[in-house]
């Protein structure tokens, strides 16, 4: 996605009309992949991720097994058609780094000690990219793991926060992501108030960073409520239910309070 010299904030609102602390419309659906032990599909605006979880299952080759606990493998991948310019299939350095950071977002959360010598495989595919892909993937992965029955301390909720045109914002879309002064990816255990992933690029003062962390914490809590509702709703009704967040309205109501 191209860089732009245009302003990203016009008339006190972002280019897509959102307030500064407003999340994009969110959809969440579980059991998106029938073959997987657990799966979920999540979208934040035009960014869409689908995740399958397999396991715990036997880990081969055996030398990779750990006697004391299971391991987790996380693969983040962008589909070739996900961006405006086609992405060559195959591993990229960015994909490798994001995979590692995402895996570490879940390591403290899953009870891997309960499953020695096994592996939990998490496959995240970004189908459509419009900013904040890794956190969208993590939100879906968290739900997929819960549905698969992987024991966890909590769900994991993730969001992006950052700075555009001097203004601190939440949930960066593509154009904001590419033109931001700073962008931060945060993943948390929402009910425990603990951070499991933190990455940042850009230029921020210490105070700006600390404010952004607080914004991330609040938004992760909102996202958690949506994840919880989406999972529980699916068990109330048949077959799959898409839990559509009324985030935009809620945010507008809150924004009007300043």
């Amino acid at each position, binding site marked *: 996605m191209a860089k732009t010299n245009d302003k990203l904030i016009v008339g006190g609102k972002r280019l897509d009309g959102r307030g500064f602390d407003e999340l994009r419309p969110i959809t969440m659906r579980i059991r998106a992949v029938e073959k997987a032990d657990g799966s979920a599909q999540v979208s934040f605006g035009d960014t869409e991720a689908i995740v399958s979880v397999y396991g715990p299952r036997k880990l081969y080759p055996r030398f990779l097994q750990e006697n004391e606990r299971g391991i987790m493998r996380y693969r983040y991948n962008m589909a070739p058609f996900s961006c405006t310019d086609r992405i060559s299939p195959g591993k990229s350095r960015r994909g490798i780094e994001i995979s590692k950071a995402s895996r570490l977002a879940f390591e403290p959360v899953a009870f891997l000690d309960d499953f020695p010598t096994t592996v939990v495989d998490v496959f995240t595919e970004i189908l459509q990219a419009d900013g904040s892909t890794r956190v969208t993937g993590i939100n879906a992965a968290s739900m997929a793991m819960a549905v698969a029955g992987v024991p966890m301390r909590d769900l994991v909720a993730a969001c992006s926060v950052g700075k555009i045109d001097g203004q601190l914002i939440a949930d960066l879309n593509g154009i904001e992501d590419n033109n931001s002064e700073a962008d931060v990816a945060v993943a948390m255990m929402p009910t425990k108030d603990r*951070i499991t992933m933190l990455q940042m690029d850009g230029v921020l*003062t210490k105070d700006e*960073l600390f404010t952004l962390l607080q914004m991330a914490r609040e938004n992760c809590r909102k996202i958690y409520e949506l994840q919880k509702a989406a999972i529980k709703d699916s068990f109330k009704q048949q077959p799959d239910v898409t839990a559509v967040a009324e985030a935009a309205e809620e945010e507008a109501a809150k924004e009007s309070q300043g």
Partner: protein
Amino acid sequence: MKTYAYDLLVNDKRIDERAMDEYRDIELKRGIIKNAEGSASCRLGNTKVIVGVKMGIGTPFSDTPDEGNLIVNAEFTPLASPEFEGGPPGEDATELARVVDRGIRESEAMDFKKLCITSGEKVWMMNVDIHIINHDGNLIDCAFLAALSALMDTKIPKLQDDKIMRGDYESELAVQHKPIEVTVCKVADKFLLDPAKEEEDVVDTKLTVAVREDDSICALQKQGAKDVSIDDIKRMVETAMAKSAELRKLLKE
């Protein structure tokens, strides 16, 4: 598996009698690789990293037609540690390269526009190659010091009819900012800096913070398999900021 290093650290002791926030002995040398346009080595205790900068000519990206390119790569060479295997960079080497890259890039340490040769057609490509020589912990901090020093050592070769005249330089690379990367570690409820490998193996969490000379934060990367509180993050960031000034003094002009 917790080892003796763990027992020491939770009692505020290091394996080598340092303070918890003390770096090991640091030695930075520049201009050590003859065929590189810029080079430096950093020895941090027993951890040793060599960085070479090679410049080449390439085409700019379509959205930045008048800017040069930076490519950072890291090799975890098998001679450096019994844990390193040969082959293409694994996730740790990839992560290290990208974290060093972000510290340099986001802090705007270099003005990429000055690396333009012909707008839209030809620009300088800077390959910063990080070669781990000995792994005794804290590779990122050591590699970053070496990389920034190598950039400060880099000279831009003369161009004659589009051919690079190696060994013949026209100018020095302008390094306009001095970011430092400090990795702060947490084990149980203790914080420490610059872990030796044995200490690094038992830490729960690490946070690498890139700090510019104006105290801006330019990059953050959390590593490690444990979770932290927001207060922990704040503390680690402040510790990194305080330490970075001390380390920056090593980067003489």
